[in-house]
């Protein structure tokens, strides 16, 4: 597709008097001190740095409005004559941000004197139709063929066009933007005592994203100028904009999800998880005024003769593409030589049919071993485009899997010629941020790629395990209990990738000719002081026990060797407790299980052990411990 998956965003920030007014002073430590405009600019500054890392090919621009000053794309101003855009100030052109762009925002955010005269509000407000057409022209000339073009408007004025005529002109210009494929996202800011009313103006200029199904809405957010619930306006702006700043890109669209023979719905796939990598190093040309990245173009040729070009290039004995195609083959190394296939033949080897997700059946989630992980999962969500009713069927399936802790098993081909994969289909519950109430993970299903037999590796053979004695385990248990992560969850947002952040921080400093930072911020380093404070004493006690037990163990072993114990298996000093040996509950013979059941000793086992047993025997793993024990007892009885 030529409509490349590139994104262009313009931040349109209102610089009116009310936007520049800082919140009233407050005694609270957490109180906001930023004016809404300052928060918006800081937000743009932060998001720009973030996008350089996460979306290095995407464009971003910053357009201020209601400013006394006026500025548009430099080169165009002359050609446009006097027809300008009053009270619109294009602070950053819509471009892939450069170090200078970052610097410009930084100096404005830091209140640089030179920039101060930009942030002077106009006496009369901007004409909204003018602002919208200004954005239109920026998108048209700067971001042609971009698959995604968005205008983010940050304002506290809910009725910027009072006169009918002005409002109509604005709605027409808004429709132009819609027809140009530009989506307007509004970030409204309410002041204490007056709520931002979208119906006054903005509902007339905002259209739904045509890619979203029409009634699928996430509740709209209204931001508060003086912050709310202890979160600053800046924090909530960043959180809200962040949830929208990356355009939702589908990995695959309208894929048939075959629930059963001749019964399909359609789903879309999304890459919610994606390892963010550092950009690769490149070549830089220093021969010009400014350092430039040299673009590399690859030409293919054989060792004897240039056979064809991917891009038109001078010279060379080009052979027609058709001839080149016919002579190119795909070859595999085999027994020291090459075995070749025609290109189409080789493609055919990966062809297992058209894209599809086909259900094979269901298993309890407990049958998915922890280690069975090879690749990140893909999120899927229903789409009504091909099959009306997809959403309700998907929802019913999701509810069932969620309720009974089941997983689907699927055969999945996401693209033509991409080869099939076997996936577990796992349900996810919606997870909201505890503070902002924003969605962190959506409700839906995940395609979890399963390993094949070919993918399983084993560690080298280990001597039989030395089982720790109870007192040592008990001691360690206290340590573990003391050191739970906050809220007892792994929250990815608390752990930015330190290497990635450092890489770009250094590059940014170098690009701006600034002093290099010295100490990296690394949130992944454990909080050593806290560990020491909370569990230090317990770790010390554990160390003492370990020392004694290890000495005793070695002693016993030496004696054992002297007496030449015939089996060379090391036996732990103490008798292993039930739980310890019971990991093999699932491997026990039915006779042994029956004994346990009769003696009522099944209760001594832990939930996971029982669950493991149940899933091994194909029993349901849901319910309380007593349910599981009962189920196992019944099973033992029946299996005679």
């Amino acid at each position: 597709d030529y409509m490349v998956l590139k994104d262009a965003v313009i931040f349109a920030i209102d610089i009116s008097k009310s936007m520049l007014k800082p919140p009233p002073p407050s005694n609270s430590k957490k109180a906001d001190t930023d004016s809404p405009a300052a928060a918006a600019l800081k937000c743009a500054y932060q998001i720009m740095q973030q996008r350089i890392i996460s979306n290095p090919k995407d464009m971003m621009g910053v357009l201020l409005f209601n400013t006394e000053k006026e500025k548009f794309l430099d080169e165009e101003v002359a050609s446009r004559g006097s027809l300008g855009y009053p009270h619109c100030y294009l602070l950053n052109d819509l471009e892939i941000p450069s170090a200078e762009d970052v610097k410009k925002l930084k100096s404005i955010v830091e209140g640089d004197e030179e920039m101060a005269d930009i942030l002077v509000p106009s006496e009369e407000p901007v004409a909204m139709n003018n602002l919208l057409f200004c954005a239109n022209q920026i998108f048209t000339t700067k971001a042609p063929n971009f698959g995604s073009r968005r205008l983010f408007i940050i304002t506290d004025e809910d009725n910027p066009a009072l006169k009918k005529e002005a409002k109509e002109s604005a709605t027409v210009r808004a429709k132009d933007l819609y027809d140009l494929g530009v989506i307007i996202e509004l970030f409204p800011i309410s002041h204490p005592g007056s709520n931002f009313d979208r119906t006054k103006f903005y509902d007339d200029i905002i259209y739904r994203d045509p890619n979203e199904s029409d009634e699928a809405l996430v509740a709209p957010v209204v931001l508060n100028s003086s912050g709310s619930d202890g979160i600053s306006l800046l924090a909530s702006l960043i959180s809200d904009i962040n949830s929208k700043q990356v355009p939702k890109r589908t990995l695959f669209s309208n894929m048939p999800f075959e629930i059963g023979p001749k019964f399909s719905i359609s789903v879309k796939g999304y890459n919610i998880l994606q390892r963010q990598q550092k950009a690769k190093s490149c070549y830089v040309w220093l021969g010009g005024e400014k350092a430039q990245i040299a673009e590399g173009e690859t030409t293919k040729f054989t060792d004897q003769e240039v056979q064809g070009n991917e891009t038109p290039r001078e010279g060379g004995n080009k052979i027609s593409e058709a001839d080149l195609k016919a002579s190119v083959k795909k070859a595999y190394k085999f027994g020291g030589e090459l075995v070749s296939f025609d290109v189409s033949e080789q493609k055919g080897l990966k062809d297992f049919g058209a894209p599809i997700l086909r259900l094979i059946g269901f298993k309890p989630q407990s049958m998915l071993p922890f280690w069975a992980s090879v690749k990140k999962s893909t999120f899927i969500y229903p789409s009504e485009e091909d099959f009306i009713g997809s959403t309700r069927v998907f929802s019913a399936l999701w509810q069932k899997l969620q309720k009974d802790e089941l997983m689907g098993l699927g055969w999945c081909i996401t693209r033509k010629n991409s080869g099939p994969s076997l996936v577990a289909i796992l349900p996810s519950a919606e997870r909201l941020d505890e503070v902002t109430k924003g969605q962190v993970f959506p409700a839906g299903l995940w395609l979890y790629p399963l390993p094949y037999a070919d993918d399983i590796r084993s560690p080298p053979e280990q001597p039989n395990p030395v089982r720790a004695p109870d007192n040592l385990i008990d001691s360690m248990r206290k340590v573990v209990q003391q050191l739970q992560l906050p809220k007892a969850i792994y929250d990815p947002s608390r752990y930015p990738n330190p290497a990635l952040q450092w890489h770009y921080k250094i590059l940014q400093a170098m690009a701006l000719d600034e002093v290099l930072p010295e100490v990296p911020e690394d949130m992944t380093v454990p909080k050593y002081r806290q560990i020491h404070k909370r569990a230090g004493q317990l770790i010390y006690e554990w160390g003492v026990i370990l020392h004694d037990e290890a000495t005793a163990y070695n002693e016993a072993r030496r004696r054992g060797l002297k007496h030449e114990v015939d089996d060379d298996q090391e036996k732990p000093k103490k008798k292993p407790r039930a739980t310890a040996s019971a990991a093999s509950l699932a491997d026990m013979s039915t006779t042994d299980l029956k004994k346990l059941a009769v003696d009522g000793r099944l209760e001594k086992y832990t939930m996971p052990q029982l669950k493991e047993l149940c899933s091994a025997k194909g029993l349901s793993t849901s319910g309380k411990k007593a349910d599981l024990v009962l189920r196992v007892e019944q099973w033992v009885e029946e299996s005679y």
Partner: protein
Amino acid sequence: MAAKEATVYIVDLGASTADCHSGRIESDLDFGMRYVWEKIAITLSNNRASDRVGVIGFRTDQTAHQLDAEEYPNISIIKPCESIKMSHLKELHRDIKPSETNDGDAVSAIVVAIDHIQQATALKDGKPGKYKRTIVLLTDGQGHMDPDGLDESGGIDFDDKEYGFKEEDKSEIKVFAEAIEYLSMPQVKPTRPYSCFQGKLSLGNWKEYEETALYIDVNRYFKTKQKKPESASTVVSRPTKGAMSGQSSSHTIGGDLEMDDAPAFNGDMAAVKNDRVYTVKAAEDDSTAENGKLTVDRDELAKGYAYGSSAVAISEAEQNIVKLETFAEFTIIGFIPWDKYERYLNMGESCITVADSTNDKARLALSSLIHSLHELESYAVARLCRPVRKGSEEGKDPEIILLAPIIDNEIEALVDVPLPFAEDVRLYKFPPLDRVITTSGAVVKTHRNLPNDDLVEAMSDYVDSMDLSKFGKNEYGKPTEYMPIEDTYSPVLHRINQAVRRRATHPEETNVGDPADVLIKYSHPPQDLVEKAASALDALKQAADVKQVPPKVKGKGKREAIKPLSDLKIDLLLNSRRREKISPDNSIAEFRQMLDHADGTDNAGLLRDAAKQMGDIIVELIQRHAVGTSAGTTEEQAVENMTVMRDAMIEYEEPELYNKFIRPLKRDLLSGKMGENRTRLWFKVKSAKLGLIDDGTSEKSPVSAEQAAEFLGSKAAELPTRSK
């Protein structure tokens, strides 16, 4: 790694093996040889110099072997038991043919083979080498078999326990068929355990807090590693040999020469190499520039990185400046309960950590951690910096991993999976699935997008009826898990391997055949289960009431008028304001708005007018092209306008309006009429696939798919070559 292998194949070449049986059109020999070829191919593909393969024929016309020819007649060593190369295959294909005789016997051949394999695998001092020895006998069982002889050969004493003996000595088809079936069973290649961390697993900072922090000596190994098919290299069939001779002078082009990874070549294939040329934007007054670009030499370039659109050069000596300095370490951040973790957060392959097996204290220590995690049903979250090199103190970039305890009779260990960082999670918001939020913000529980009770129940029944957890059968016929991981094989990997082996041993075949059944076994639910669940599925279909959307209703003015959130009648407003003329500044929006009017009587006229205006604007955009930076974007704008116009003409079923525009445009671009160097724009048009609309895309088009392809294909060779 598996032991060295030596295999001798004893092949029955008696005249009777030329017959065909069981309705096959293949001779028994060819049929049976499939197994042998496949086995030889597997050996070849393993590519291990120490592996040996020999082939001995019996019931051959000649006698040629190391033992007494009188005693063991009609037996020939076709290929001595040595290493095998592709070139041997041709000879084997030539020599393995049914003979003219039926004299000779299998047991004698076994005697010859045993003696031969012993000699072939003996060390220099005569002692047996460390080999896994296998003899495979392939016979139609029609020849003479001397049972006494068999005793004799069986009586030979081997001190090598691994000695394997394999017979397929009956003429029953079943035996052959089993062997053939065995072939399609994918072989999982064993791999050497790979250690990816060796050092201390710590809790707390033991360097700073000696007494209140701990560490345990551990080893960490791969637990899963995705096995990918070998990648194919691109080669070109060499033109006739004669033409090539004398042209061996090396090719020199400024820039890099990168070899595609290609090993030795057959005489008729040549590697495709890559030549990289680097260009930068030229200064506006640079007369040596071409298309605003300047070609630069690799040697003039510094290494560096992009920061947004800025380039940051970093000198050779400073390359490490952007790397976060870390020490190789493995340290626990904290713990979380099992039920607070979602499996879909797993970012990739798993590893397994065990205590240093030589350190009893470490084994006790790790065991206590493993058991306490198990009892508390908790995972550990840890930060891991692997060493940059084995044993190095310097660490790679940090990873965060989630560790789970595993305990069984053989092993106590921690298994881990990688976790995402903040940057790895994209915040895409999706509406909830159990309620609907309306435009006004109200929450609705009954809605056409939500299942009603019937559907919920029908789905529940269907899911229960498709349970796989007990659907499989173990070897005793007891119900067990269906489709366990150990029974699933990578379809693409094995399909490619099988095809490569087949092609290598049978280069004359042109068809690569279908994938083996075992590879697509799990592409559908098991038939028995489907039948069992049929009624539940019917009930589900009924309750779901899913309707397929008919193919898009094409056409004129059938589009619903689009409204903003407020339901404002924007189309009426537009009608009263817009004129007939599309303004070049706002062309895409106004073109689309003009077409939205196409619902009345004179669509043809309106569409013609719109297309004409749009065409003129595109031409104007192309001609507005000026040297300098804006050149690129006006061209891009032209391409976007063309895309919009083409899509609209398809939608409104007026393909010729576009075709009439693009034909002269191509001519003018290529002839230079639209200015110098416009071929580049044509390439953009080509890569955007903006050629003629063919009859496959729009029924009303008189242009065939071939004509459209030819129009767009416009071979590079046809283009006027620019002179240097």
